């Protein structure tokens, strides 16, 4: 039956994604033991995390085939999240490591 065939394909895809996630987890742990500067370490860790998160979102959460409305909602949320991160950091970024003592 067509439906079962499609579903079997879908399930295959889920297993492939699981494989990718497992590999990426191993990679992120392995890379962490390398001696790189903190800046690099953050970038690499976040790139891998974003990749893993995107895999879960796109395939397990079906975001790849989801309606425009949901995309729009998520894009707005992510923009605001990044605003919260970067703008806040901007206000203290020039004083990193300076202890605030009363």
């Amino acid at each position: 039956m067509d439906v079962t065939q499609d579903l079997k394909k879908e399930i295959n895809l889920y297993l492939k994604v699981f494989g990718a996630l497992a590999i990426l987890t191993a990679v992120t742990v392995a890379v962490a033991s390398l001696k790189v500067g903190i800046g690099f370490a953050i970038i690499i860790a976040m790139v891998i995390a974003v990749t893993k998160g995107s895999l879960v979102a796109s395939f397990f959460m079906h975001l790849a085939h989801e309606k425009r409305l949901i995309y729009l909602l998520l894009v707005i949320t992510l923009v605001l999240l990044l605003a919260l991160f970067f703008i806040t950091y901007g206000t203290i970024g020039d004083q990193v490591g300076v202890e605030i003592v009363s």
Partner: protein
Amino acid sequence: MVDHDQEEPFWRKYIFSVDHKVIGLQYAITAMLFLFFGFCLILIMRWNLAYPGEVVPIVGKLLSEEGMLTPDGYNSFGVMHGTIMIFLGVVPLAVGGFGNYVLPLQLGAPDMAFPKINMFSFWSFFVGGIFMLASFFLPQGPASSGWTMYAPLSVIATTGETVWLFGMVFLITSSLLGSINFIATVIQLRTKGLTWMRLPFFVWGQFVTAFLLLLAFPPLEAAAVLQLMDRLAGSSFFMTSGLYVGGEVLEVAGGGSPLLWQHLFWFLAHPEVYVLILPGMGIVAEVITNNTRKPLWGYRSIVYSVIFLGFMSFVVWAHHMFLTGMGTKMAAFFQTTTMIISIPSVIILSALFISLWGGSIRFNTPMLFALGFLPMFGIGGLTGLPLGLASSDIHLHDTYYVIGHFHYVVAPGTIFALFAGIYYWFPKVTGKRMNEGLGKIHFFGSFICMNGVFSPMFIQGLAGISRRLYDGGASYLHAEPVLQWNEFMTMAALGLGFFQFFFIANLFISLAKGEKVSSNPWKATTLDWAATPTPPLPHVNFENIPEVYRGPYEYSMNGGGNGQKDFTPQHESVKD
């Protein structure tokens, strides 16, 4: 159609109801009681400001043994006045009350998308309110560190602060669930033919407001958790090292940042002020179009403006923090975004003003309040400009100027819009009209007194009197020339309270023996006035689900000469 009246026991019908109309009324009534209580708090504070050190009449014995308001009491009342007015009064009335009741009706929907969650939202708000009220009975009183709860003072403060934080968690939960409901309802339950650009502006206002609540509240919830950890688990999220309290070093790990609290707090609290104003603008748009018998001028511009405003409101928050040493680049950033955000506000206000041009204006009570809103919000907005500019803010930050600014926007601004809404939709809810004579007295008295209370605050602020001073500035030499305004403002505040009795009396008298009206006494075009019967039945809004054929404000579009009506309701079919 099943008659639910016979089936539901009293507690299901009126207490744990899932009907949006019942829930809307529950929110509205509870919120109005809280508004009254919050107003009483400030009256006591204002008495103390006019007559420092004197016994407060009537309620003196409740405040302290000597009958005066103590400095700690003043601080607590200040916190609770702000908290109650914003989180337990204005927002629950504007969003929980008006939004819940009117939104499904204007959308042609049978109810909200998630009725059970709606009910849970209300009771979560109620529990949050109980926490806030309960804090008055603590031995050391309610929270007293300013409604902004800045660390480290809030972290070392008395138990009232912890109760405040727990109360906020319930209120935030209520807001989040409510906003999910509102957004899903607007997107999914619009009736046939009701496209985005045919929505009443009231719906757009509530829709954008819901997004602000959805995305801005969670960081404050996170911050509340962090502050609770600091207070209860001894962490140092907001506590620096080297703090002295009462001459002794505070034993904390340190390494935290008070600025972290400020950022997370204002990330919510700035969008929150747009939550306070947008529903009001929505109501004013409805009332003005209805009473000028003309379409809304610039509908498209207003819609794009409100969407842009909603988005911009997330990136201006640190204009509340200009004095925290963020450096000129970041100050310039926030100053710029703040100036930009004034543009959509001006577009919306201008469009509402221009909508009056050439209209056949009916000066009924809702219209008077809506008209009053316009210049009052204008003053509020204009006085915000020197606060949004970093350089002038250095002088004005934390002074009475700020208090004057935001009260102009919320008090003769939003609250006037809410009064307009109550007078306007009262016939829909009850099937009776409110008394026009009492309404007009209420309006004119309130308008004069509002200006009496808040305009001297600009004078005092410019003279340099700080906020949150128990003696109203009396101990400062620079405050001396402007101190006499304190008594004037207190008298105006008492006058304002006096004129609210006309409103309260009107509510009860009209409920009992107000003039009975038809389903559409204002001859309005939007779907809420097509809902029959009036008042609406439980769980049933429309006998026939309406279909929409045109925009929301088709007034005077067809000549409207002798015998012809001057409005075309949205649901009136083209063939009729």
